[in-house]
């Protein structure tokens, strides 16, 4: 009997030490770093990939009350208000917060803690455009000769897609953005469900037929890094810094977790210098820590000047409407004028 009890106690102890982290599908960190964290703390980490950032957040919201994880990583500033309004996160003022860039601290309640930031941006395939003219201004994209070369992500199902949509709203205004998208649609823009489909299936660099793709400013550097010496210079480049969108990714502790202490230690670890310095070459975003050094390959990707930074309150108030209007115009072929008339 005593043996059974001891075994049970050991089992529950073992279970209590497992920390489940719900992330988007692009999450990645060095395996050695993770192993060291597990050894030092005795906390076993299990990463659960929930799909796109928005979809992952929704899964956390739909399981409110009986959370499927202890920690949620990867929701961004475009969805920040949804995460906060759903009231699924616990506040945590990590001691590491004072080391973070202050412009990333978008949630004064400290339920959403910034981990990294980056820029969604248009990429082009250098080889394809060798000897051909690149579009000169964002407006040019809507010309048929460029629209049929472009693949974007569906903003309803993809967070870079949503970020790019918001960048077009910022650039062309509440009225103009729908006309811009209507012209893209007529010109033959392709819509992919998510970033990996757009980048790895449709982009010419990876065997597709579209030399223009909505990706990140860091993607060209990533190409060099992963090419194992094949590329000395990036085979792709960024276009239109004024259409780049400033994106912050957050971590938060899920309400209802039974592992609060372990969850806090994980958040501290995520913000610690070794992890922050690992993030750039794993997830191709910039670390939130001021004192984190960037890897050498990041010299290819200076942060774009003048990237779009939208006010979180404006995104919260309009996000659903923008997605719906975009869907109507681009996927359903409705007239922008009629869609605008439907607003009140």
């Amino acid at each position, binding site marked *: 009997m005593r043996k059974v009890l001891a075994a049970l106690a050991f089992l529950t102890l073992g279970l209590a030490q497992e920390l489940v982290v719900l992330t988007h599908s692009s999450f990645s960190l060095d395996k050695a770093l993770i192993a060291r964290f597990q050894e030092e703390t005795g906390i076993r980490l299990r990463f659960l990939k929930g799909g796109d950032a928005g*979809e992952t957040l*929704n899964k956390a919201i739909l399981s409110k009350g009986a959370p499927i994880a202890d920690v949620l990583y990867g929701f961004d500033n475009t969805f920040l208000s949804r995460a906060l309004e759903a009231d699924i996160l616990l506040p945590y003022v990590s001691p590491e917060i004072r080391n973070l860039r202050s412009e990333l601290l978008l949630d004064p309640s400290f339920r959403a803690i910034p981990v990294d930031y980056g820029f969604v941006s248009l990429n082009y395939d250098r080889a394809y455009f060798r000897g051909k003219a690149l579009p000169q201004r964002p407006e040019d994209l809507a010309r048929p000769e460029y629209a049929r070369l472009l693949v974007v992500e569906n903003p309803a199902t993809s967070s870079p897609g949503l970020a790019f949509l918001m960048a077009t709203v910022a650039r062309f205004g509440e009225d103009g953005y729908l006309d811009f998208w209507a012209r893209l649609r007529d010109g033959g823009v392709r819509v992919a469900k998510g970033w990996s489909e757009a980048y790895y299936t449709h982009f010419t660099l990876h065997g597709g037929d579209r030399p223009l793709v909505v990706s990140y400013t860091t993607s060209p550097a990533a190409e060099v890094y992963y090419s194992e010496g094949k590329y000395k210079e990036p085979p792709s480049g960024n276009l239109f810094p004024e259409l780049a969108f400033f994106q912050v990714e957050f971590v938060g502790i899920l309400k209802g977790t039974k592992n609060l202490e372990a969850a806090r230690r994980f958040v501290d670890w995520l913000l610690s210098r070794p992890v922050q310095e690992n993030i750039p070459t794993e997830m191709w975003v910039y670390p939130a820590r001021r004192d984190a050094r960037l890897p050498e390959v990041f010299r290819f990707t200076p942060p774009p000047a003048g990237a779009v930074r939208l006010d979180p309150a404006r995104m919260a108030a309009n996000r*659903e409407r923008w*997605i719906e209007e975009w869907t109507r115009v681009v996927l359903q072929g409705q007239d922008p004028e009629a869609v605008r008339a439907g607003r009140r």
Partner: protein
Amino acid sequence: MGAAALVLAFLAFALFYPLGRVLVLGVGEGFGRALANPYYWERYLFSLEYGLGSALLTLALALPLAFLFRWRFPGRAGFLALSTLPFVLPTPVVALGFLALVGPRGLLGLDLYGTRAVLYWAALFYNLGLALRILLPVALALERPLEAARVLGASPFRAFLRVGLPLLLPALASAGLLVFLYAFSAFGVPLLLGGPRYATLEVEIYTLLAYRLAFPEASALMLLQVATLAGVALLYLRLQGAALPPPVPPRPLPRGRGWALALGMGVFFLGVYAPLLALALRLEPLALASAWASEDFTPLPLALANTLRFSLGALGLALLLGVAYALAARGRLWVDLLGLLPLMVSPVAVGLGYLVAYPGLRGSLLLLLAAYALLAYPLLARALLPALRGLPPSLLQAARVLGASPFRAFLRVELPLLLPALSSGTALALAALLGEFGASLVLWRPEWTTLALAIYERLGRPGEGPFREAVALALVLALLSAGLFYLLDRGRGRFG
């Protein structure tokens, strides 16, 4: 009466209350917003078009086929068995078969992903066997009346028009309505093959929920769907089959023509069911191994264990409910109608209803099992009811007169006679449970990932590796479904 109360209590928990909550939400907030948006109307119209088009396409091919199957030719039984196979195949399996054949990485090198063509082909793939099963007995029964008309001097065409067609119409209508019901509310196939342009209402409901968390709009669309399905289902129930002469057995063809017919049939069936073949051809044993020990996705053993655990658990519940329902519905029409309700509510809608109605139970397996049982017991009961109604009442009376209690009389006299129908119904219910997709997807929790969801999970990621693993999982699921079905049904092949 106890049986009826049991079914009612279950329906109150698993159907009426959640549906009522969705109704309030949908009418209150979502209806005005959803109906004002032409986009949702287009989704609705596309669902109607897909339902109607699938019904017409299936009938157009099944009708001549049914007449050809009046002849005996080599392989006839095999072709018939093959045509019923898709009925027990889960939608992710079928969708993956199509991707393996005509997807972006397909064997044919022709990419039909996101086209109308692939959706209609899939509808035909699923429903041809169903239509054939309804039409073939009628075609065989027409033999004598048609002959009589010919003897009386009518031309073959005239005989068919004036005698055959009127007798065929009820069967055509009921097959058509069934195909419509299935295609109109289709989920797995359009979700995985249709792309954003060809989403049915059901897919749109899921998308609204999963990506935008728009409960009111999703509820409003669900109401639109339930109302349409209920209307069509009532139409279906009102259909009365004409009294038909007994069918004649299939007649032999002369040797040469028999082989010619078999050859033609083979080419046709190969065309329709090629996606299954493609699935088998794309299997790589190594992918099976990597799916088994996968670190990025739900590993095969966990998914398999979940699939078996949930299906068998829910099957127990569905058996209890199905038998209780069939007993209660034997004499009372209103119970009969009531028990059909779950067939009109889609799996995605059931999941949505549970999320709205029981937020406190979100982590509990109870919800998943309730959804599974709700979707499965009508199938079981449909198979059981005709057998139950066909029992001579005198048998039971004799047992009672001889002193058996009602329960004992049921157990010792009726049950043994019902066993064949019961095991057929169980086979059908189990096949549906093993591949359940919509409700599982909406109620998803990582530790609940079933084989069907493990396939979907891998399809969401680009690259050859996850796709190969998905193919391997699909084959495992296909073998499991078909294997268990034929084990239980032992080739009797009694459907609905």
